[in-house]
């Protein structure tokens, strides 16, 4: 692990260097308290002094430093040139004006009132500039694909072309089963593709295999497979693509349409239609076939179902001259061209029966289906005898699918998919980094649309795995083994399941970890720290947000507020607002966090202890959090904090949480202003004066150091 | 006010004897014995599975005794009943005209002959007294109004010779607060035990009955003497006699004491 960047502080003593003032000592203590090396120089505004700074910085191996001096030593001074000469970059210095009266006027440099606070803030910023060292990480170039058919084969083909190995576990015996929704051409394409791929040495097919276990994390999974011969073996894989979906059932609701020779699924009907002669044999020979199509009679149907029904109706009328009635319950129309398609089949003579409150009742017979229903527009009972009824499908309560989800470490959503209800997961990401979802597994029941996902998933997996070596940033998330109690909270809260367990204790997989900090905030042992975002830093930022000027003790205190801003949403929004010229309200201090999930409940409590009057947490909207669930965890904590504050006698309205989107620059400053207004109305934090007096008195607390050592 | 409570108030020295219900269904001998004892004492105290050994229900025995006109103190233990069972037993006692209750924690089950039984102790004796007072006020512990409230003179037990004594006294004070009118001490060995105890309980406002037990025939003379001493000392409000091994001899013991 790389050592953190080295920082330093240079303090200019002015021209004489003589007696140290108390204020100067306070500067030194401030820097020392944060464990930063302090160098004292004289006359950094002059050539000689600047040269000394450059030399010391080079000798100390510093990556960055703060120069606390008068404006004469600032950017216009001689230091930049000296740094160049010493082979260092002038950007490494952060100038901090600490001197009230530059040398010359009084012959002595006076440290500004509040200089220590300014230095404290500068140190916080400097410490947060963590630049992680990147390293190469070995990843597996084998990919596991679950499923069969065109979707799985296309994905496998993509990986094989990219030079990866593919482990393909198919639920059935065939690599290229029929593709009813895509018709005969797709079936032919899949068959050809299967033949082509089977020849590849880098493809390993496990027909009727079962995935028993997926251990490890992105880039370095270990899969345990049970094959058809009940043999168990393991492979290392870098990523997993799930292209199969849950088993489905007919969406018949309470109509009595049970699967049978005369009641089939729409997909099956399409499959039959691909061979009309074959289809004819399934129906009574004489007369015009009468076919009913049903969509959304149970739960609401997807646009795909209606589209399939229309396609089937077109085929039935066109190819077989059938008499078709389309029964619809609740169905989504939100799909391009669906309106046109329905108009088209209406034109072909297909009868539409729409149900709002009623449902048909079916009585299946060996030679057909009798359907009785209440026609809501006509307002009367009707009945129809049909040769065949085809019903749309919805995911069924599939235990096997739930079992697979468990093995993959994912949850089954209400639509049967494994994808979190989150815009940032779209189109193919899952809640486990390195596992990609396609087709029904991602909620896309529309196969053509699912085929579009193949490219996305390939790109995602390739970005993750690279060419067998991935560049990762090391040391962003540190787990202190001595503190860790192996409670697994971090493993459970990590939105991307990046916490791997090696050597018994959790460790963040840098390939999967986004350093959102949710784990650090939830860790009950404070064992996890995010580099540059550690608890100490936030403690200091909170401390620095409280005005410590002695004059504040006398004047009526201004309201002071802290804004925690998520770097993914509130951060950009606030930056854009500032660029647009919105003024920043006084008394409000901004603290950036990588995700609202990083806001530890302790930070909020510290803030109120320190005397801040209000805290505003600006995160993403819950279903748009860039770390998927970071905002969700933050929301849990906000509720908890309200209770804690109430219990402690602090008005919980002082804590405000809001969701904001990155493009809401027009609104975000209003949010801050409203929060500030609310805090204004609530009055001063009762702890404010106490905290200030305590801090003010600390200035006069004698610290024993060598300067004060008693002679002798 | 029960006859026994009246006696506590009026008499200088009350006398109770303890009777164990039979270990079986033969109740007649007990009824006969009680018939002989009742006129000679202020109350018959019916024990409840004494020593954590099951016997015929104390409530059933006490009901029969009360029916034949005896003044009865019904013992109920917290060991065998939860608050529901205690409530119904107390109500049954009230309905049977039993006006006195002695509420005790009860010896632990491991001291009896069913050591594997599950001990209840849902309430402790202080809380059981509270329950009886609540019932007497016309409500049960859930606050439901009773269809007719019982009325009890309540008693509790104390180990006067306990070491350390102060924790016993703290609890005794709670018992008095909770509604105990009289206190029965565990069997005493000598007058000294009682002297120390009584000095500390004088202010509690409860009547103390000195417990005296003849565990085997050899102790009989000693108990007779001790009773005389206690009575003479004027320390307590009365005495409670028991002969667990041979309660049929209780009349003879009373003879020997000249009572």
């Amino acid at each position: 692990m790389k050592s953190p960047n080295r920082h330093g502080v240079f303090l200019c003593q002015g021209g004489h260097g003589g007696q140290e003032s108390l204020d100067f000592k306070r500067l030194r203590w401030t820097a020392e308290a944060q464990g930063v090396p302090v160098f004292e120089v004289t006359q950094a505004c002059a050539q000689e002094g600047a040269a000394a700074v450059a030399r010391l910085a080079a000798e100390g191996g510093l990556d960055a430093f703060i120069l606390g001096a008068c404006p004469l030593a600032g950017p216009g001074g001689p230091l930049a040139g000296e740094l160049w000469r010493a082979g260092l970059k002038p950007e490494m210095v952060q100038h901090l004006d600490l001197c009230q009266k530059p040398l010359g006027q009084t012959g002595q440099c006076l440290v500004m009132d509040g200089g220590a606070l300014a230095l404290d803030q500068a140190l916080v910023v400097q410490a947060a500039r963590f630049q992680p060292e990147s390293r190469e990480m070995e990843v597996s170039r084998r990919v596991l694909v679950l499923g069969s058919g065109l979707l799985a084969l296309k994905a496998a083909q993509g990986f094989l072309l990219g030079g990866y190995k593919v482990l393909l576990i198919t639920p059935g015996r065939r690599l290229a089963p029929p593709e009813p929704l895509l018709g005969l051409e797709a079936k032919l394409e899949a068959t050809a593709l299967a033949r082509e791929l089977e020849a590849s040495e880098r493809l390993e097919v496990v027909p009727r295999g079962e995935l028993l276990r997926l251990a490890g994390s992105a880039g370095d999974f270990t899969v345990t497979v049970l094959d058809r011969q009940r043999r168990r073996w393991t492979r290392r894989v870098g990523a997993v693509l799930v292209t199969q979906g849950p088993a489905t059932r007919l969406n018949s609701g309470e109509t009595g349409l049970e699967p049978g020779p005369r009641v089939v699924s729409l997909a099956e009907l399409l499959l039959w239609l691909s061979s009309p002669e074959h289809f004819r044999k399934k129906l009574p020979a004489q007369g015009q076939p009468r076919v009913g199509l049903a969509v959304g009679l149970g739960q609401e149907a997807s646009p795909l179902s209606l589209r399939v029904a229309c396609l089937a109706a077109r085929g039935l009328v066109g190819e077989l001259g059938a008499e078709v009635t389309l029964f619809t319950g609740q169905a989504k129309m939100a799909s391009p061209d669906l309106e046109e398609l329905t108009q088209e089949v209406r034109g072909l003579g297909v009868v539409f029966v729409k149900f709002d409150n009623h449902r048909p009742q079916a009585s299946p017979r060996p030679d057909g289906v009798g359907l009785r229903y209440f026609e809501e527009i006509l307002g009367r009972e009707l009945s129809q005898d049909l040769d065949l009824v085809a019903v749309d499908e919805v995911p069924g309560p599939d235990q096997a699918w739930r079992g697979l989800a468990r093995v993959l470490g994912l949850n089954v959503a209400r639509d049967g998919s494994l994808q979190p209800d989150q815009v940032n997961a779209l189109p193919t990401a899952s809640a486990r980094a390195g596992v990609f979802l396609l087709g029904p597994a991602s909620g896309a029941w529309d196969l053509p649309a699912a085929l579009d996902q193949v490219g996305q998933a390939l790109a995602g997996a390739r970005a993750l795995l690279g060419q067998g070596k991935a560049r990762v940033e090391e040391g962003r998330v540190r787990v202190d083994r001595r503190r860790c109690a192996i409670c697994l909270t971090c493993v459970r809260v990590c939105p991307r399941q990046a916490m791997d367990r090696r050597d018994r204790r959790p460790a963040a997989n840098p390939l999967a970890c986004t350093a959102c900090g949710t784990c650090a905030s939830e860790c009950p042992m404070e064992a996890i720290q995010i580099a540059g975002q550690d608890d100490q830093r936030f403690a200091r930022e909170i401390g620095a947000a409280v005005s410590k000027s002695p004059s504040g003790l006398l004047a009526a205190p201004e309201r002071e507020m802290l804004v925690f801003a998520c770097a993914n949403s509130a951060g950009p929004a606030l930056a854009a607002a500032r660029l647009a010229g919105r003024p920043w309200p006084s008394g409000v201090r901004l603290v950036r966090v990588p995700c609202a999930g990083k806001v530890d409940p302790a930070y909020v409590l510290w803030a109120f202890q320190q005397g801040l009057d209000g805290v505003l947490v600006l995160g993403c909207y819950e279903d748009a959090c860039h770390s998927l669930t970071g905002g969700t965890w933050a929301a849990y904590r906000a509720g908890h904090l309200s209770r804690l504050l109430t219990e402690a006698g602090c008005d919980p309205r002082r804590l405000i949480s809001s969701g904001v989107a990155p493009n809401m620059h027009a609104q975000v400053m209003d949010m801050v202003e409203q929060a500030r207004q609310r805090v204004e109305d609530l009055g001063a934090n009762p702890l404010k004066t106490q905290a200030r007096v305590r801090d003010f008195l600390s200035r006069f607390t004698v610290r024993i150091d060598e300067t004060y050592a008693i002679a002798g | 006010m029960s006859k026994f409570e009246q006696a506590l108030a009026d008499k200088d020295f009350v006398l109770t004897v303890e009777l164990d219900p039979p270990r079986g269904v033969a109740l007649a001998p007990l009824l006969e014995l009680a018939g002989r004892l009742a006129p000679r004492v202020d109350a018959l105290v019916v024990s409840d599975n004494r020593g954590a050994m099951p016997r015929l229900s104390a409530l059933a025995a006490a009901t029969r005794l009360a029916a034949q006109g005896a003044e009865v103190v019904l013992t109920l233990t917290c060991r065998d009943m939860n608050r529901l069972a205690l409530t119904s037993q107390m109500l049954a006692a009230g309905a049977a005209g039993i006006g006195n209750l002695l509420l005790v924690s009860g010896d632990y089950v491991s001291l009896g002959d069913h050591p594997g039984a599950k001990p209840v102790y849902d309430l402790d004796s202080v809380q059981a007294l509270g329950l009886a007072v609540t019932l007497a006020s016309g409500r049960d512990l859930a606050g439901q109004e009773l269809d007719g409230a019982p009325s009890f003179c309540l008693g509790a037990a104390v180990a006067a010779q306990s070491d350390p004594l102060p924790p016993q006294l703290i609890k005794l004070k709670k018992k008095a607060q909770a509604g105990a009118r009289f206190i029965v001490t565990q069997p005493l060995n000598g007058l000294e035990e009682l002297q120390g105890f009584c000095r500390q309980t004088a202010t509690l406002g409860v009547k103390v009955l000195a417990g005296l037990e003849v565990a085997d025939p050899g102790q009989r003379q000693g108990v007779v003497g001790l009773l005389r001493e206690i009575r003479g000392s004027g320390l307590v409000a009365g005495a409670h006699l028991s002969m667990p091994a041979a309660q049929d001899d209780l009349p003879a013991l009373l003879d020997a004491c000249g009572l």
Partner: protein
Amino acid sequence: MIVAQRKDFEQIKAAAADFRKVLVVGCGTCVAVCLTGGEKEAGILAAQLDLASQIKGEEKSFAVACVERQCDLEFLDELAETVLDHDALLSLACGAGIQLLAERYPRVPVLAGVDTTFIGINRDVGLWEERCRACRSCLLTTTGGICPVSLCPKGMLNGPCGGTRQGKCETDPERDCAWSLIYERLAGLDRLENLSAIVAPRDHGARGQPGRQVHPAYLRRYSAHE
């Protein structure tokens, strides 16, 4: 921590009698600390069972596995493959761990190898003492940090019963009377007034059985209304 003790060997042997391949599953947390169900004890039990079955000439095999905690599904997942090779799982975890193991692998019979005894403290190597009954209504603030619920056999809440003998319990002359200890502790702290108020009967059923506890921060996550 939770303390458990190994069941009688005959009982374990009888329970395992119907199975040919038994996996003894230890637990690396509480039962390991109380020297009852950790990896070592699991190994000893497996060796002992193996010895017993070989002496009887039975064709049986016993294997050992140990997970960090049997009361966490994540750790039980580690056994997924091993379990397939066995006819029965003999768990040395506390009752909670055994149940989760059985829930995680419903197709394999799970046998209990230990009796969970109490929540207690580590007094010395090989010596544990009960200190808590998880009664959900802690009185320790007023009782000087000595628990009458777990240390008094009768669980008296208002003071000692009449069975105290020289500061010992009526059930066992070796056992300290909890209420004597409480009295001494409070007298030493000069806080005897703690005992003056009558303690109301305990609420045995406020939240019903079995227990379910939600951290206040996650009420929203687990509340039934959402």
